[in-house]
């Protein structure tokens, strides 16, 4: 259990998914314009990330490894992620129709979660690091919290930034990159916390 919590803390702060490992940047730059939609994306991705880590572990250890089909891992994981996103969308639509109608307002679109490299990246890192089932879940959950933290921080910084004067050539993507760089620098401060 303490092992799991160590993994959780390390993935949230020391090896933060976005600022240190560069996974999940597309939604960070695309969807964090509004504070509300940032929270929506964060919750949606957190759910899919944790679920995908668990299911991909089961598929890897029960189907791919015993049958020596590791080379199919990439295709299988992508199909898995696409179906997980679709299934969770269908479940929300069936059980919470009002919430489902609100999703586009929060900026949650299905493609945005699928094209999020974070989900695939976390599943692949789990395999590469040979995590156990519980470790995979903790890693997925920690990655999700780390992603949510950065996404919300970033959205808040952008809100502040709108009130300030930015040189013309830096407007738009360039200043976002530099903001992300400073955020990443701040996260570098956690290096060595795990030891």
């Amino acid at each position: 259990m303490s092992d799991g919590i160590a993994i959780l803390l390390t993935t949230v702060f020391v090896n933060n998914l976005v600022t240190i490992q560069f996974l999940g940047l597309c939604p960070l730059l695309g969807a964090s314009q509004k504070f509300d939609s940032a929270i929506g994306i964060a919750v949606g991705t957190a759910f899919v990330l944790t679920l995908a880590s668990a299911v991909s572990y089961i598929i890897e250890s029960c189907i791919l490894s015993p049958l020596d089909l590791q080379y199919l891992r990439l295709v299988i994981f992508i199909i898995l992620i696409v179906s997980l996103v679709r299934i969770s969308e269908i479940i929300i639509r069936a059980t919470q129709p009002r919430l489902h109608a609100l999703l586009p307002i929060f900026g949650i679109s299905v493609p945005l979660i699928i094209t999020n490299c974070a989900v695939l990246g976390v599943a692949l890192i789990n395999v590469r690091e040979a995590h156990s089932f519980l470790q995979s879940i903790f890693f997925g959950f920690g990655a999700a919290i780390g992603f949510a933290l950065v996404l919300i921080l970033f959205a808040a910084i952008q809100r502040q930034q709108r009130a300030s004067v930015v040189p013309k050539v830096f407007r738009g993507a360039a200043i976002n990159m530099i903001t992300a760089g400073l955020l990443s620098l701040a996260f570098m401060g956690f290096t060595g916390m795990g030891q």
Partner: protein
Amino acid sequence: MKKFSKIARDGIWQQNPALVQLLGLCPLLAVSNSFVTAFSLGIVTVLVLTISNVVISIIRLILNEDLSLTTQITVLATCLILSDIALQAWYFELHHRIGLFVALIVTNCSLLSRAELSSSSNPIISSAIDGLMMGLGFFWVIVLMGTIREGLGSGTLFSNMHMLLGPAGKNLEITFSHNGFLLLVLPPGAFLSLGFLIALKNFLFDNRD
């Protein structure tokens, strides 16, 4: 011919996947901390984009429209698995460094959207050229970033080329300083250097128009 030159200009400059569309950022930022990794990933991207564009546009001729997204993802993933296995077989050390990001090219939105766009209206040759040019657009940005980050960050250039070229590559390393600006090799440096590159591109764009 005019159409092809427009495709080329779009891919390499005007609609550059890395600088304008901001797609494929994870591999771009993560792998560009040294020249050799950036160069190798750039090559893989160019190859995969071109080949998968051709395959997809051929399959499209005989395929039901509804299946297009699934087919695209499968074709892309197949190309990537092949290049992953090839890397593992011939460039094992390199595979250890960039393997994860080769796999992540698949989620790269640029590949998906471009494959869709180009092969829906264009014949096979122009989608091949489109893939090639988009790939080259990504290639020059990642190689430039690799050069800048390695050159300023660790004060060397072409270090570890033996991972790509075998023992002959060991002599290629150029050292111009022994204490570089470490920040550029670390993750924040990736964001900062891309930010400045985009700003430079905006500057050039504004002055020309």
